[in-house]
């Protein structure tokens, strides 16, 4: 292996890590602002200009809090829970193509850390492991509310992963590839997958809300019934990790949705502008981030609009609504492509 590539990948990895953390940090700020604005309030505006230092203040607060590990909790697992949640949340960013190809000194570098040929499956694997973080944390707390939250999280994630996977199957039929790089490349210009898979997109979006434990599917941490859900017993930065992991997950799922359905870093009419390769790549990355931020806004918008589902409604929607729909979507896509391919 050639050294420049290794160095480049390491640097790029750190940049992505920092950007992910930064976006997640400011999502907390954004969330509070969006919530406030939708409720005719002003939101945090005291720490720094427009309250921009608020996430820092929150972070400091989290670190200063007393660290409590309940006596009856399983110490090792109690610490393992938030670590898993945070690690898996961060791992997913590796396969996302953040941009096209950039040329430095005659060498081409791709703005994607690892172009796995089964990129989508990797994302799914990571998301599935993420649920262990919640489960282990909730179970190790030795608290009935936490356990309830953990059980809910587990069953909710399993139910919605099915429908999510099936909506991806239909997408894979249209694109013919599991590699995220390939999928983005195919959506060049305005050739976005959402126009081919609108139903699949809706299913995927709904499942993404459920997978990230965001309202209206935030039953695992449903504060009205379960105190704090799986993180009832957590305090200090361990709680911070759980909350932070949720925002990272939101960022990553926004990125995945933008990649799969909104053409990733592709911009409409970019070919007509006649820009150099590097400029196109940079513009594309910026455009990609705009899409991601738009998706994050959608996440928040939904959260502050819809009330929480009841648990039976959640299961009904998952098993009786989304899964049949997803199967129907696969069938319809399959039949459509079978006949168009034949002709």
């Amino acid at each position: 292996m050639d050294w420049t590539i290794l160095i480049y990948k390491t640097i790029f990895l750190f940049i992505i890590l920092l950007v992910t953390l930064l976006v997640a940090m400011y999502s907390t700020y954004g969330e509070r602002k969006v919530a406030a604005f939708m409720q005719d309030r002003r939101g945090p505006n005291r720490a720094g200009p427009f309250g921009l230092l608020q996430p820092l203040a929150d972070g400091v607060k989290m670190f200063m809090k007393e660290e409590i590990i309940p006596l009856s909790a399983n110490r090792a697992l109690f610490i393992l829970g938030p670590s898993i949640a945070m690690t898996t949340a961060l791992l997913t960013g590796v396969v996302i193509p953040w941009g096209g190809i950039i040329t430095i000194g005659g060498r081409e570098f791709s703005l994607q850390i690892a172009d796995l040929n089964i990129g989508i499956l990797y994302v799914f694997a990571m998301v599935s492991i993420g649920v262990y973080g919640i489960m282990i944390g909730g179970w190790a707390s030795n608290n009935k509310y936490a356990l309830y939250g953990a059980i809910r999280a587990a069953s909710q994630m399993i139910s919605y992963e099915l429908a999510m996977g099936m909506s991806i199957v239909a997408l894979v039929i249209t694109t013919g590839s599991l590699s995220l790089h390939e999928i983005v490349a195919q959506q060049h210009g305005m050739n976005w997958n959402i126009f081919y898979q609108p139903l699949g997109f809706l299913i995927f979006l709904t499942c993404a809300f459920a997978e990230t434990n965001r309202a209206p599917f935030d039953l695992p941490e449903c504060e009205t019934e379960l105190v704090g859900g799986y993180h009832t017993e957590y305090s200090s930065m361990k709680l911070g990790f759980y909350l932070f992991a949720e925002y990272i997950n939101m960022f990553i799922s926004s990125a995945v949705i933008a990649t799969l359905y909104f053409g990733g870093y592709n911009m409409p009419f970019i070919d007509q502008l006649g820009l150099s390769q590097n400029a196109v790549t940079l513009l594309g990355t910026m455009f990609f981030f705009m899409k991601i931020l738009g998706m994050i806004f959608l996440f928040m918008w939904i959260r502050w609009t819809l009330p929480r589902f009841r648990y039976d409604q959640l299961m009904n929607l998952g098993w009786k609504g989304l899964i049949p729909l997803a199967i129907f979507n696969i069938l319809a896509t399959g039949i459509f492509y079978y006949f168009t391919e034949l002709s």
Partner: protein
Amino acid sequence: MEKLTNRSRVVSDKKMTFLEKIYLPAIVKGMIITLKHFFSKKATINYPEQKREFSKVYRGQHVLKRDDLGRERCTACGLCAVACPAEAITMIAAERKPGEENLYREEKYAAVYEINMLRCIYCGDCEDACPKEAIFLTDRIVASQYHREPFVYGKDILVEPLDPEKRIDVSARQTESVRNFKLNKRFAHNK
């Protein structure tokens, strides 16, 4: 039965139609509503920089007035304390010594005069009861504190400053009609 508001709805558990069952139209409708609020004028104001306008006769922190010569008007008659529904006022009376005529207007004065701002409900009854026009409520806000003790305001806070420039203006509440009412012999307090 007559409806109390026009917002009441008859509740029924009829089967949901298809459009209701897929939730989407309702979700979109809700999202449009929240988006409208996103851009609407905010109900909150930036408090310390920006203050809400009070009514001219707002009932806030009390002031114990001095007369034009700078003498305290209160004569420690205790009528305000009796009138107070919250029993927020306590006082200790004292007799004016010779030579103190420039300090106190009447022969008897309040050596201690305390209002517990946590008990007070800002009804203004003390002001109505006062025959000497000594106590008034003003449009000042009682400052917040971390403990209870500082909320018991003594004469150091209540009595207005001597300096004519710094006198508290109560002209909005001390109108001619208020004065006439107080001087009217028909009412019990003047008999």
